[in-house]
C-alpha cells in the first residue's frame, strides 16, 4: 500500500524551504502518477474479477432462468447469447473493456437494468453509511486511544484495551442482531431498517446522501428521520473500526511519547494537553490516517452484512444478491466500485499526509 510515503522525518530535521511553484508542479505530477496507477489497478481488478467469475463451475443460466426454461436448450442458448457467454473468454473480456470505456457496465441479469443504473441507485446509500461510520470511528477511536496512551498500564488503559479488543472481536452480524433487538424491538428508540419511514419520500436528489440533501433543502423533519435511520446500522458498522483505530492510536502515541522532544516540551512547562495534542497527537496522526484508510476498506466489508440485516438499500446488499445469483455483470460492477473507492481513499490519505505534516513530500 502507499504507506511508504508516510515515512516521518525526524522532528528535529531542518525544514526544507521550497519555492511554491515547484510544489504545485510536484502535486500535478503526483496526481498524474496516481491517475496512471489507478487505471492500472482498475484494469487489474476487472481482470481478476473476470477470471474469478467466469472460470468457476457455477452456471449463470441455471441461476437466472426459471425451472422450466432451464430444460429448454433454446432458452439457455438465447440467454448465453444475450449476455455474450457463448463467446471465447478473451473475446468476452475485451468486449467488456470496450464497453467499459463507453461507460457501459452491461445489463444486470437479475434486475434487467444497466448495472450503472443499479449502482447509481445503491452507491449513495452505502457512501452515506460508510462515511457516517468512519467519522464516528475516528472521533471515538482516536479519543479512546489518547486516553489509553495517557494512562498507560493503569486502569483506564486496561478498560480501553478490553473495549477495543472486544470491538475487533465482535461478529458484526451478531452485534447488529443484538442492537436491533434491544434498541428497536424492545425499547423502540431507533427505527429498525430502511433509510426513511415508509410514508416519507426521498429528499430532492443532490448528493444522494439523504441527511445531506435534506439539510441542504432545509427539510428538517426528513433530516431527523434520515439521521435516526442511519444511527443503528452506522454505529453497528463502526464497532470494529473503533476497536481498530483505538488500538492503533494508542500504539503510535506511545511510540512518539518516547521521543526526547516530548520530554523537552514537558520540561519547558507546557501544559499536558498541549504536549499531548500538539507534540504527540499531530505526528501520530500521520500513521493513524494510514490505518483509517485501511479501516474504510473493512467498513465496506461490513456493509455486506449490516445492510442485509437493516435492509439498507446499498451496494452491500446488491453485492450479496449478485454473488448469490451469479449475476456476473453486477459482480464486475461492484468490484469496480470497490476498486474506485480504494483508489480515492488512498489518494485522500496521501493528500492528508501533506496537510498534517507539510514536510512530507508527495512522491
Amino acid at each position: 500500500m502507499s504507506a511508504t510515503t508516510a515515512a516521518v522525518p525526524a522532528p528535529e530535521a531542518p525544514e526544507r524551504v521550497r519555492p511554491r511553484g515547484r510544489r504545485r508542479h510536484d502535486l500535478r505530477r503526483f496526481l498524474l502518477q496516481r491517475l496512471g496507477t489507478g487505471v492500472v489497478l482498475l484494469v487489474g481488478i476487472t481482470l481478476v474479477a473476470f477470471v474469478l467469475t467466469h472460470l468457476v463451475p457455477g452456471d449463470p443460466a441455471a441461476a437466472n432462468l426459471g425451472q422450466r426454461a432451464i430444460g429448454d436448450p433454446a432458452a439457455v442458448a438465447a440467454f448465453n447469447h444475450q449476455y455474450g457467454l457463448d463467446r471465447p473468454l478473451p473475446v468476452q473480456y475485451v468486449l467488456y473493456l470496450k464497453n467499459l470505456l463507453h461507460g457501459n457496465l452491461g445489463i444486470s441479469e437479475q434486475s434487467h437494468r444497466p448495472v450503472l443504473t443499479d449502482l447509481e441507485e445503491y452507491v449513495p446509500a452505502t457512501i452515506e453509511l460508510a462515511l457516517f461510520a468512519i467519522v464516528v470511528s475516528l472521533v471515538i477511536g482516536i479519543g479512546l486511544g489518547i486516553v489509553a496512551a495517557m494512562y498507560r498500564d493503569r486502569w483506564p488503559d486496561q478498560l480501553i484495551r478490553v473495549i477495543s479488543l472486544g470491538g475487533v472481536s465482535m461478529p458484526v452480524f451478531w452485534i447488529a442482531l443484538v442492537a436491533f433487538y434491544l434498541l428497536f424491538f424492545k425499547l423502540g428508540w431507533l427505527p429498525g431498517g430502511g433509510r426513511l419511514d415508509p410514508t416519507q419520500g426521498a429528499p430532492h436528489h443532490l448528493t444522494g446522501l439523504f441527511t445531506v440533501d435534506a439539510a441542504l433543502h432545509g427539510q428538517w423533519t426528513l433530516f431527523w428521520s434520515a439521521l435516526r435511520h442511519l444511527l443503528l446500522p452506522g454505529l453497528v458498522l463502526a464497532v470494529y473500526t473503533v476497536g481498530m483505530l483505538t488500538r492503533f492510536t494508542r500504539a503510535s502515541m506511545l511510540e512518539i511519547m518516547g521521543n526526547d522532544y516530548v520530554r523537552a516540551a514537558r520540561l519547558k512547562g507546557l501544559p499536558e494537553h498541549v504536549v499531548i495534542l500538539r507534540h504527540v497527537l499531530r505526528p501520530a496522526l500521520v500513521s493513524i490516517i494510514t490505518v483509517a484508510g485501511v479501516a474504510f476498506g473493512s467498513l465496506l466489508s461490513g456493509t455486506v452484512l449490516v445492510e442485509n440485516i437493516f435492509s439498507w438499500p446499498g451496494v452491500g446488499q446488491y453485492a450479496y444478491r449478485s454473488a448469490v445469483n451469479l449475476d456476473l455483470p453486477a459482480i464486475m460492477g461492484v468490484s469496480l466500485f470497490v476498486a474506485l473507492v480504494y483508489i480515492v481513499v488512498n489518494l485522500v490519505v496521501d493528500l492528508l499526509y501533506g496537510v498534517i505534516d507539510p514536510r512530507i513530500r508527495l512522491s
Partner: protein
Amino acid sequence: MKRIRTRALAPPPWRRPLALGGLAVIAAWAVIAIFAPLIAPQNPLAQKFTILAGPSAAHWFGTDELGRDVFSRVLFGARITLPLAVILIVVAMVIGAIIGGVAGFFGGWVDNILMRVADLVFAFPGIILALAVAAALGAQLRNAVIAVVVVSWPSYARLVRSLVLSARSAQYVVASRLLGASGVRVLFTDIRPNAAGPVLVLAALDIGNAVLLLSGLSFLGLGAQPPTAEWGAMVAEGTQNFNDWWVGLFPGLAILTVVLAFNFIGDALRDMLDPRTARAVRL
C-alpha cells in the same frame, strides 16, 4: 540482542492476565469440541422439543424454530469452527509463505508479478471477494474455507517477502552461500527458522479475523448448510426469529469468546516476540 531487549520491556507471560484468560478459553473450547458428544445433553440435530421455548432448566439456551436444543448445538458448533480456523490459517500461512519466499528470494519480475497479485487481493474488501468465490464455487462449508484462504494469504506473503529480503544480505545467509549451499537450501534451512516467529505472531493475530469471516459467510448462507450446527448459521436463524432472542444470542457469544480469546493471545505474543514486524504488515 533484540530478544533480550524486548523481554526487558514487555512483562513476562505470567504477568499477562488477558493472554492467560485467552489461553484458558481456547483450551476450554478445545475440550468442549473433543468431548461434545459426551458433554452435550441432547443430540444437536434432534427436532423433538417444543419449538422456540425460552431458556429453562431443561434447555439452558432454549430451543430453536425446529425444536432443537440450542445449548447442545452451541457445544457441537465448536467442532466445526475451531478445527477449520486452525486448518485455514495453516493453509493460508503455508501458501502465503511459499509465495512470499519465492518473491523475496528470486526478486525481479517474479517478485513483481506475485506481489502485484497480492496487492490486488489485499485491496479488495475481504468479504466481497470471499462472497464472490464462495458463491461461484457453490454454497458449501468447504468452499467457504477456500474463499477465506483466498482472501487471507497476501498478508503472509508480504511479511515473508520482507523477512526474506532483509535476511538475504544477513551474514549467516552470506556465509551459507559461501559454503556452497543452494538457494533453495538457504531459503529452507537458514531463513525459514528465523522467519517463523513473526509469521506465527501474524497467524495468531489473524486467526480471529478468519473465524469472523468464515462465520460471516455461513451467516449469509454461503458456508455451512442446514442442519449443521455452525455458529454463524445459527445467528442467521436468530435473525429470522429475532423476538426469540436466545436463538441468535448464544451462538454469537460463542464466536465472540473464541475470537476475543485468540486476539488476547495474539496481542500478547506480538508484544513479547515481535513488536515491529507484525504491526508493519497488519496494522
